[in-house]
């Protein structure tokens, strides 16, 4: 049993007083180790940060991830290409369609499939809806952690409206499984344009209300401005992408730099910040919501008629009507289910701009129906790796807004 004085040298006991030779007035501190998480409300249950504190100041930090590791890549190696699409929903579960798009486009690149234009437009619509939902959740949760509860309710309400649209698109709200290899699972529902436009107007009204509540709020600004700062040069060197990198002034957006789908034909701006702090990250996200809405409205106006599935017979599912009436299609379906579509041997990397940054899939094919390797380059993992550099030297209270604006999604980071 330790002597209480040895245990706590700052204790106001007679022995300590004699040892220090001074009064009770000055408060001596010693470095304290604080386990932040994994069950802290603001860590969203999936990360642990071991902080070394000198008073309120952080002198060292160790960010530990892996609490949600489920072996996504190992699981993908045992499934056929089409069987892995539902797993990608569970990567970033707040914007699942973007993950579906990323994976399916990587597989299409491997197979060499060109998708019809209507499919590309539907993918953009679904993906941008997901992006809005993800940004709203990031901003709402982050503001709630800074004790602003009303924006959280507004954002959740707006997210519900977006999820209704996702529901109309594919029949599911969160685990969408919407995109197929070479197409999408369903065409747009009837009257989707009017439905979506009305819903998006409501969402934008909520976003503007949140903007009025947060952007000029002195408490919010003091917690966000200047915290979590990392210079743009370091952000690039650490492999940070997405809103974090753009808040540092680097206009790197995969949609603009390597246009895929129909982003090259659409008109949108890439917002960039200036100070590379949490407040700019918040502003970039708010502006991206508006730009995503712009993209969706353009897509709904310009979307052409036509098929939504590629006619490539290697991956196209024949459809139940043909399967029940024709022999060849029955065999096709049977073979697709039992041995999968055989891919050409080779390796591809395809990246899309997910809500948090560059989401890339690196596929190595051995020429069979299963990927030899399916690697997911997740933006959250690279974005949170310099978190130590962002918070060391700052105050303990800065950890919460920094973590909220990094917006680490456990499913995507830990896979």
């Amino acid at each position, binding site marked *: 049993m330790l002597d209480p004085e040895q245990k706590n040298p700052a204790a106001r006991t007679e022995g300590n007083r004699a040892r220090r030779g001074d009064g009770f007035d000055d408060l001596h501190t010693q470095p304290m180790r604080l386990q932040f998480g994994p069950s802290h409300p603001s860590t969203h249950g999936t990360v642990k940060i071991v902080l070394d504190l000198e008073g309120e100041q952080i002198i060292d930090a160790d960010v530990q*991830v892996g609490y949600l590791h489920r072996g996504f890549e190992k699981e993908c190696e045992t499934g056929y290409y089409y069987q892995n699409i539902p797993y990608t929903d569970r990567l970033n579960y707040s914007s699942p369609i973007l993950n579906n798009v990323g994976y399916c486009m990587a597989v299409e690149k*491997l197979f060499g499939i060109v998708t019809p234009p209507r499919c590309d437009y539907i993918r953009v619509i679904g993906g941008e809806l997901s992006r809005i939902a993800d940004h709203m959740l990031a901003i709402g949760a982050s503001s709630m952690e800074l004790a602003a509860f009303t924006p959280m309710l507004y954002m959740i309400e707006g997210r519900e409206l977006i999820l209704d649209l996702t529901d109309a698109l594919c029949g599911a709200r969160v685990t969408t499984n919407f995109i197929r290899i070479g197409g999408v699972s369903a065409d747009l529902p009837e009257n989707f344009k009017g439905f979506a436009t009305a819903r998006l107007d409501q969402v934008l009204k909520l976003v503007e209300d949140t903007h009025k509540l947060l952007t000029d709020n002195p408490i919010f600004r003091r917690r966000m401005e200047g915290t979590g700062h990392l210079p743009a040069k370091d952000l*690039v060197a*650490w*492999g940070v992408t997405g809103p974090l990198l753009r808040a540092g002034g680097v206009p790197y957006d995969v949609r603009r730099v*390597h246009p895929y789908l129909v982003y090259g034909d659409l008109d949108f701006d890439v917002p960039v910040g200036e100070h590379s702090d949490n407040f700019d990250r918040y502003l970039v996200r708010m502006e991206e919501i508006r730009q995503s809405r712009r993209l969706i409205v353009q897509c709904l106006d310009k979307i052409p008629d036509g098929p939504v599935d590629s006619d490539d017979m290697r991956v196209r599912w024949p459809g139940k009507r043909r399967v029940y009436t024709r022999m060849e299609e029955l065999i096709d379906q049977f073979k697709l289910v039992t041995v999968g579509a055989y891919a050409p041997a080779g390796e591809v990397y395809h*990246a899309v701009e997910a809500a948090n940054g560059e989401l890339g899939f690196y596929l190595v094919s051995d020429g069979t129906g299963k990927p030899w*390797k399916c*690697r997911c380059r997740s933006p959250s*993992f690279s974005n949170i790796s310099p978190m130590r550099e962002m918070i060391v030297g700052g105050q303990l209270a800065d950890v919460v807004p920094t973590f909220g604006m990094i917006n680490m999604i456990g499913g995507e980071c830990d896979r």
Partner: protein
Amino acid sequence: MTADDRETTAQATPSEPSRSPLMDAVLERLGSLVLEHHNFRGDDRIHVAREHLVEVAQALRDSPELAFDMLLDVTAVDYLGQADEFETKLEVWDRNRAVMRRQPQRRHELVLPPRGSHPRYAVVYHLTSTTRSHRLRIKCRVPEDDPTIASVTSIWPGANWLERETFDLYGIRFTGHPDLRRIYLYDEFEGHPLRKDYGKWDEQPIQAYVGPGAKEPRRPH
């Protein structure tokens, strides 16, 4: 659709196109350090020897016309039992039993294939440039008996966690890494789960709790 069409579709793999301007610039800069270079579906890829990795990485980052300032990804590929590069299967619709049974469920069911003459692992780096907006992939083969490679954390600090992850899941040791420990799994984990000789359903021994207030470990079930 006839059988002939199917074979044509299967064979329709792209031949190697002519070299891209990026590859010309890379070859001009690196010269004989590049062992081979490929272009598949528009992805540029170079193979370098693992002894020259740091030198190549430094040159790619610092040369102004390449300017690969961002390391996107580090990962590895386990080519267990593969003699050489993969080949496209022409008999597309044949049921390949080796594929069906490729993933062992338990380790004792595993029959290790004969090792080829090629090194077992390949460490893969994906680079991009935020100013020039091009991408490049570097592959380094790493043998099974000495799975080590130099760390590139001194060139791109973002390699820190990515190399830790590759070490965790593949067991490849990065020499010169400042903090090489497991990142997803716990320290007592046996083996490296993304290796091909690790079965999907392999079980790990239960770890007794050590620390303050630890009781006698329960009887293993």
